[in-house]
């Protein structure tokens, strides 16, 4: 598909420039994270971190590790809960087609469209009554609402691609529905499980609105709140803020490097359904 004519390479040049422009803010974040305090307000700003410093990253190690740990735990919890809820539902909607299934799919589609601020206010009222504000399980539960509808839609789309013969063969071998699901459907659906897990982790890792409303006053605060407090408290130390931002971007970067294929799959499967 790719031809190495001079014209094609010229296009690569333009592509590099366009990508560079799009990613420039990301570069700037990295650059500022290495900039010394006294150079921060230099005019014109230094385009490269000459005389770079690691102070920003030292600050991250000193102050942000608990936040990162919380985000990691919340992310893992969200992934487990999301897959546990969504995979059986996807299987049922794709292969068992119960009466009322389409109505449920429709509700899930609608659920994706509810603005987070409304969910947050409702959760706040409920959590206050139950006394689970500022707890890890509370935040995990709220964060799953970011991923579950999407996850069911993805699982449904992927699992309808499983050949019926495969499932019938399992039934012929004497496997029950549960066993078929566990030993045949799940292993075959590994790609969709990876896709769903990646997105669920990333969304819960990036969540700010639930964190700020449901965990704002507690001991278990995720990294998004870590950055937010940083901006509020010491807006002089921009290298520390940007270093935290760089560290907070690591999951997104890892996701893109390790699983680029799954990422574009997730983006398009969510939007373009055939």
């Amino acid at each position, binding site marked *: 598909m790719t031809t190495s004519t001079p014209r094609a390479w010229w296009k690569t040049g333009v592509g590099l420039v366009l990508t560079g422009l799009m990613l420039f803010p990301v570069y700037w974040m990295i650059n500022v994270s290495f900039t010394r305090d006294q150079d921060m307000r230099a005019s014109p700003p230094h385009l490269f971190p000459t005389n770079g410093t690691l102070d920003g990253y030292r600050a991250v190690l000193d102050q942000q590790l608990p936040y990162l740990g919380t985000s990691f735990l919340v992310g893992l919890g969200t992934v487990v809960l999301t897959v546990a809820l969504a995979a059986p539902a996807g299987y049922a909607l794709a292969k068992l087609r119960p009466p009322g299934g389409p109505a449920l799919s429709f509700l899930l589609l609608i659920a994706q469209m509810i603005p987070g601020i409304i969910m947050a206010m409702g959760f706040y009222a409920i959590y206050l009554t139950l006394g689970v504000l500022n707890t890890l399980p509370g935040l995990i539960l709220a964060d799953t609402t970011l991923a579950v509808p999407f996850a069911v839609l993805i699982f449904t789309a992927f699992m309808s691609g499983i050949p019926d013969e495969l499932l019938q063969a399992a039934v012929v071998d004497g496997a029950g529905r549960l066993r078929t699901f566990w030993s045949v459907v799940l292993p075959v659906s590994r790609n969709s499980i990876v896709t769903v897990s990646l997105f669920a982790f990333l969304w819960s890792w990036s969540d700010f609105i639930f964190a700020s409303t449901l965990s704002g006053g507690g001991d278990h605060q995720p990294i998004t709140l870590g950055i937010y407090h940083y901006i509020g408290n010491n807006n002089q130390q921009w290298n520390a803020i940007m270093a935290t931002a760089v560290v907070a971007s690591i999951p997104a970067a890892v996701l*893109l490097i390790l699983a680029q294929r799954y990422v574009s799959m997730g983006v398009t499967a969510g939007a373009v359904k055939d």
Partner: protein
Amino acid sequence: MPSTTETSTAVRDQGGAATAAPPGPPPSRARRPSRWWAWGFLAPVTIYLAAFYAYPLYRNVELSLREYTVRSFVQGGAPFAGLDNYRTVLTDPAFVPTLTHTVVFTAASLAFQFTIGMALALFFHQHFPLSRTLRALILVPWLLPLIVSASTWSWLLNSDSGLVNAALGVVGIDPVNWLTSPGWSLTSVIIANVWIGIPFNLVVLYSGLQAIPTEMYEASALDGATGWQRFWGITFPLLRPVSLITLLLGLVYTLKVFDLIWIMTKGGPTSSSATLATWSYRLGFGNLLPEFGPGAAIGNLLIVLALIAGLVYIRIERRQQLR
């Protein structure tokens, strides 16, 4: 990883729009036995939907219909207020400006995201060396946590030390108070939001482009059509359904945008970049004395807007599936 799944995904990936496996044939209900037992697999998610979507939504409606104070919020027993909260919000002098900001923010974000995304999709559709890698890299802004993008843009647009003002200075333009002047704050958050939204538009439109059969282009090339004619004659009409869905999804997402604006400007200065979402948050959580009732009322107005867009989206999608 076993090679079988590898290849099957790769094939699907090249299929572009067909990244998700196509659904099987519709069930012929008459011949099948009752499948109510399948709800066993659906039970967890159904209970979950009821408990964590329906109930918070219900609580939100209830909040908007009662007169809550901090005390009654904790202890219960707030008096029923009917539509008072909605009346308060609708007659608030801030309502019209905030609604205008929401509309401007949404419309401008969509217009720029879509146009730039479309241009990039067309460019990357030409398949040159490295195009795949570069296309993947452009996804980065969309994957970053919003707080990361928002704080990076805050620093880029900083009045005194921001790079944008430094660059403007080189060209001889006076520094702009991007985030701190009422005239520019809305523009600033739109710029950041467009940047975040471009990758999504690019990826979805690109997958739409891949679904257009190449024969169509070959035929028109024989007819001697120019690139511009090809775009308006073939690409644009054939891409219409995907474009509509992209725009509608963009609309639903943009109406929801809260984090970005809150982190960059908190809706200020003097509410000059406040949207319905940030206003609702400010009323409920941003003040020392929370006003949950009006906050919830604004939230419910927002949800009506999102649902209208959502229903249009579902209608269009259904119609396309029938075709």
